[in-house]
């Protein structure tokens, strides 16, 4: 049984208070010219209209997380949570990303207790995308601007109000308990507007591309010279990985206060695009250049993750394109990969010779 409510925009604070009394609430907040996910205490902090630059994963998998603090041989885990986590204003792409991250951190034989601590009992209040950007391609990645996957409640902006619909039992329970009195149902006009918002969004979004051939293509293109060419357009920074909703690689560092035996162990985001990511103690680096690292990124998201978890690790949010300093476009890579696979081959020995040549230990080959 799914409920539908009308929340007038001036009354959003009521929703927010209901959330903050039960949850640690995160939402999009304007930080000068960017919009980042931050903890919020009131509705006027929220910037729901803007495209979120930082990823929603930050609420459940923060960039810096203390694993333990130590003093000599004694160590202490950080205190447990007092409240579960809720996120509001989550676009369908980001909501879906949480499901993908949960496959990594929250399922299977080994689960990450840090993830579980934040993710268990969490509430996701999604926000339908009325104005997709040119760089959005969620519809090519199994999602869509009003897709409810991953959201417990979905908000649709109808001008002066939001129509809130529950998408899961958890969402339903929250709406029932949070709005005991004064429940306003959406009018027919509201529902019409919601329908229009959905159609408009789909019309604005570029038609879905068919990337189904990518995985099989990638399996054959390991040695291809295509990667050299593709990698030239990448600066090998970490912007895409850190802002990507599904990227989840991390590093663990110990930070000891010099002169003491006190310190902390932190888990921090890391990126396969950093040259240090695969550098070994001997000094050898199996991914010495941006070519190997770019290939790795594409393979991980569109091949290995699919092998391991049955789905592509991409939700089509487009941040990696929009926020990339070099305007690198992963959609073009996917298209090129499929085109390369379709191209009739002529024996390509030269490429194989190049690959087999002695690899120098190039630490940071541009």
């Amino acid at each position, binding site marked *: 049984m799914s409920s539908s409510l009308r929340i007038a925009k001036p009354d959003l604070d009521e929703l927010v208070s209901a959330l903050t009394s039960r949850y640690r609430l995160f939402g999009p907040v304007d930080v000068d010219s960017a919009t*980042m996910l931050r903890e919020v205490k009131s509705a006027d902090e929220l910037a729901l209209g803007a495209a979120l630059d930082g990823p929603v994963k930050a609420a459940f998998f923060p960039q810096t997380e203390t694993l333990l603090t130590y003093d000599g041989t004694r160590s202490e885990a950080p205190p447990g949570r007092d409240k579960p986590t809720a996120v509001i204003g989550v676009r369908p792409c980001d909501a879906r990303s949480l499901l993908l991250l949960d496959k990594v951190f929250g399922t299977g034989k080994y689960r990450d207790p840090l993830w579980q601590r934040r993710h268990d009992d969490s509430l996701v209040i999604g926000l339908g995308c009325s104005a997709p950007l040119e760089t959005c391609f969620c519809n090519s990645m199994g999602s869509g601007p009003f897709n409810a996957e991953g959201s417990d409640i979905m908000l649709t902006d109808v001008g002066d109000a939001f129509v809130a619909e529950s998408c899961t039992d958890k969402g339903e329970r929250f709406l029932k308990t949070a709005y005991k009195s004064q429940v306003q149902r959406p009018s027919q006009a509201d529902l019409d507007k919601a329908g229009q918002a959905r159609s408009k969004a789909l019309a604005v979004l570029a038609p879905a591309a068919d990337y189904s051939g990518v995985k099989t293509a990638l399996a054959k293109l390991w040695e291809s010279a295509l990667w050299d060419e593709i990698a030239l357009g990448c600066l090998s920074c970490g912007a895409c990985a850190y802002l990507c909703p599904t990227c989840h690689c991390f590093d663990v560092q110990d930070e000891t206060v010099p002169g003491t035996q006190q310190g902390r162990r932190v888990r921090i985001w890391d990126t396969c695009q950093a040259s240090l990511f695969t550098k070994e103690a001997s000094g050898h680096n199996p991914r010495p250049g941006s070519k190997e690292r770019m290939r790795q990124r594409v393979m991980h998201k569109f091949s290995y993750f699919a092998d391991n978890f049955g789905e592509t690790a991409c939700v089509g949010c487009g941040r990696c394109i929009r926020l990339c300093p070099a305007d690198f476009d992963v959609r073009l890579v996917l298209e090129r990969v499929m085109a390369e696979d379709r191209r009739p081959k002529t024996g390509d020995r030269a490429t194989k010779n190049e690959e087999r040549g002695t690899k120098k230990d190039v630490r940071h080959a541009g």
Partner: protein
Amino acid sequence: MSDWEPKIVAFLCNWCSYAGADLAGVSRIQYPPNVRVVRVPCSGRVNPLFVLKSLENGFDGVLVSGCHPGDCHYISGNYIARRKFATLKTALEFIGVEPGRVQFSWVSAGEGEKFAQVVARVTDDVRKLGPAKRLVKSAEAGRAGATLQQSRGGGE
């Protein structure tokens, strides 16, 4: 905080400033005990990162001292250092590290008295500025800095 004493690290070049400090000691010249000395072969050896790491690790002040221009044991190390020091000082003051926390001097091997005066001056300047808080990364500061992290989704 009334019993707080400034902790200052001094990078002294082996041939001039370190010898000058030694002379101050041998001559029984009294000077504040707040300085910990790190001997380097030349002031030019001092990487600005030494200064920054010192501040990060909790020193309240940093002194770098070398031979007078023209007297460098390695001919030009202190000239190169002079340019680095100017740049470093400018950068630190521009981002808001208090002027006076990081200071530079030329002290020769025979200037025991000058060394004592330099130390007294720097200690006094740093004492007036109070304990260093900017750029410091202590367990306490780490927790304070974590308030941002809290709002970003970390902590707890």
